Each structure stands twice: as C-alpha cells, then as structure tokens.
C-alpha cells in the first residue's frame, strides 16, 4: 500500500473504522514511513482538540419555550381552520344559524311590514281617495255658490278645513 492510499485511510484508521487486515497494513506502514506518521500525528492531535472542546451551557427554559411555540402554532392552526372552514365550528354553529334563519322567516311571514307586502303600500291612499259621488257633490256646491246671493255665499263657504285630498283637486267653473 503506497503513501497516498494510506493517507486517505488515516482518518478511518484513527476512528477505528477499518477492518483488522487494513489496520494491520497501515500500522506497519506508519512504523516505516515518517511522512505518513507525521500526518497521522497531526490528525490525532486535531481529533483530541475537537474532543476536548467545552460544551456550552445550555439554555434553561428551552423546553418551556418549545411548549409555548407549540401552543402558539396549534392555536394558529385552529384559527386558520376556522377562518377557511366554517364547519370547524361544529354542529352547534350550524344549528344556531338555522334557528336564526327560521325565526326571521317566521317573523316576516307572520308580521309583514309595508315594505315586505306590496298590497299594503296602496291601502292607505285608497281609503282616503274621494269617491265619484263626493266629487260631483263638490262641483254642484260650487255652482250653487255662484248663483246664490252674497249673504248666502258666506253661509255656504265651508267653515272647517276641507278633506286634505280634495284641496288639491281643480274645480271647473
């Protein structure tokens, strides 16, 4: 085995990761080769220097931080599920929503408002609209008023306020 091959196996030799036969060959080579022996020595020194490195003091509250981080991520995941999936609320949410819609539907059907019922929008003006008989009677009264003497005209003038809808109707003379 030449020096190049031996030097490529020196690290594995140092770590006792070679077969018995390989170890024996390299051991014999190191006895005779000064260059490879120095190489082995320097690698051995490096290994012991790395092995003697002091372990730094580990953080004390590491696991509690992890528990907090785990809790945060779990709650974040839960929140994101709720945001994107309404079914995450469960059956209770669906039942509550159904009850609210049912109540609102029933309330609108039983107690309709003018806006919700188109029939009710025309109801009030119809009741206040003057009938054709009332219109004819008013015209007749106007004609009588013109032919009557002045003292009677004063008596025939309506004393109280007129029907609000009649006030705007033009009277033909």
């Amino acid at each position: 085995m030449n020096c190049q091959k031996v030097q490529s196996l020196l690290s594995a030799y140092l770590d006792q990761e070679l077969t018995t036969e390989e170890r024996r060959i390299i051991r014999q080579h190191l006895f005779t080769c000064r260059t490879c022996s120095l190489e082995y020595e320097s690698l051995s020194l490096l290994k012991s220097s790395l092995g003697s490195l002091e372990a730094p003091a580990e953080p004390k509250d590491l696991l509690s931080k992890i528990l907090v981080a785990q809790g945060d991520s779990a709650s974040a995941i839960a929140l994101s599920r709720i945001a994107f999936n309404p079914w995450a609320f469960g059956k209770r949410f669906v039942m509550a929503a159904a009850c609210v819609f049912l109540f609102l539907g029933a309330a609108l059907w039983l107690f309709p408002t003018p806006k919700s019922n188109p029939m009710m929008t025309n109801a009030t003006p119809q009741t206040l609209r003057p009938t054709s008989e009332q219109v004819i009677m008013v015209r007749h009264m106007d004609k009588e008023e013109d032919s009557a003497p002045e003292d009677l005209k004063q008596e025939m003038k309506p004393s109280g306020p007129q029907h609000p809808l009649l006030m705007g109707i033009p009277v033909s003379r």
Partner: protein
Amino acid sequence: MEQTQPLTLTQSASSRWEEFEKEVADHEKALYHFAYRLCGNPEDAQDLLQEGLLKAYRSYNRFKKGTSFDRWVFQIIYRSFVDLYRKKKRRPFVSSLNETSPHFEQEKPPEVPDYSALPEEMALKQELGAIIQKSLLKLPNEFRAAVILCDVQGFSYEEISQILQCSLGTVRSRIHRGRRLLRELLRPYLIGERRGG
C-alpha cells in the same frame, strides 16, 4: 351549560409531552452542543435547537420506539440547519459594523469549574476553543457536520451515515476531507499546542 376553558394540552397530548420532555432532558446537552458547533454562536444555536425540537415534537408520533432518540433528533436538527442555511443564503447579508463577530465570542465556561487546571491553562484552552470554532465555521456544511458528529459527539461512521442520510463511503470521505481542511486552518495553533503539551 358548558364553560369555555383556556387552551391546554389534552390528557394524551400531556402524556406525550412528558415522554418527549424526558427523552430530550437525557440528550439536551449534546443536542445543544451540536447546534452550537454548527452555528458558532449561542443565539443561532438556541433558535436551531428550538426549531429542531419543535419539528421533532410535531412528528413524535412517527418516531419508532426502541430506536435511538438522539440520532433521530440530530438528524432533524441537521436538516433544519441546512434549511436555515439555504434561507440565509438567499437573503442579502446585513451586518452592523459595531457588532462583534460571533466567532470571536468567548467560549462559555463549563457549569462545574475544574479547579485542578491553572487559570492560564483555562484561558489558553478557551482561546483555542474559540479559534477552533472559527475554523469550523469555514468548513462546508456537510464536512463540518460530519467532523462535529465524529470528533465532538463521538458517533460511529454508521451512526453518522444515518444522521446525515448518506452512505458510509461518503461519511468517511467527508470526515477525512473536513479534518484535512481544518488541520490546514489550525496548523500554526496545533504546532504550538503540540510543543506546549
């Protein structure tokens, strides 16, 4: 009527957490040491370890009982480190001129002081530790991880191949090339160490 309760772990999650906590407590020091040697400063090491342990806890149900827990977590931490490194590489490098380099930070003293060693020896050891750490950071990630796992953590090649998810031949090559690079970077200091020792 049901009362709302604050977010707490359920019984099964609680027992799972206790089990995980026990496993981590046995290997916490070694895991943090690995993260620290990969990153080179305590802040990044803590972030890396936290990230790795969080991932490990989330996938703890996939961990096969009876297999080595520490190797499994080492693997997760290394993957997290590679991911973080890729993300950092994509981002532009921003650094303050007033900020001291993390490589020159003093090594933290051990928890139990060794009174047998002289103060000068301790100082020299700490100084050499800082220089070694600085040199480790100059290695490519895969070489650094392999050297740390072998020489600092003391794993076998077989175990390292499982952690780094590569073949035995690749592990052997990475360790050898990593050591040679490191030796060139540390040559002046190692010669002094040899003479001093």
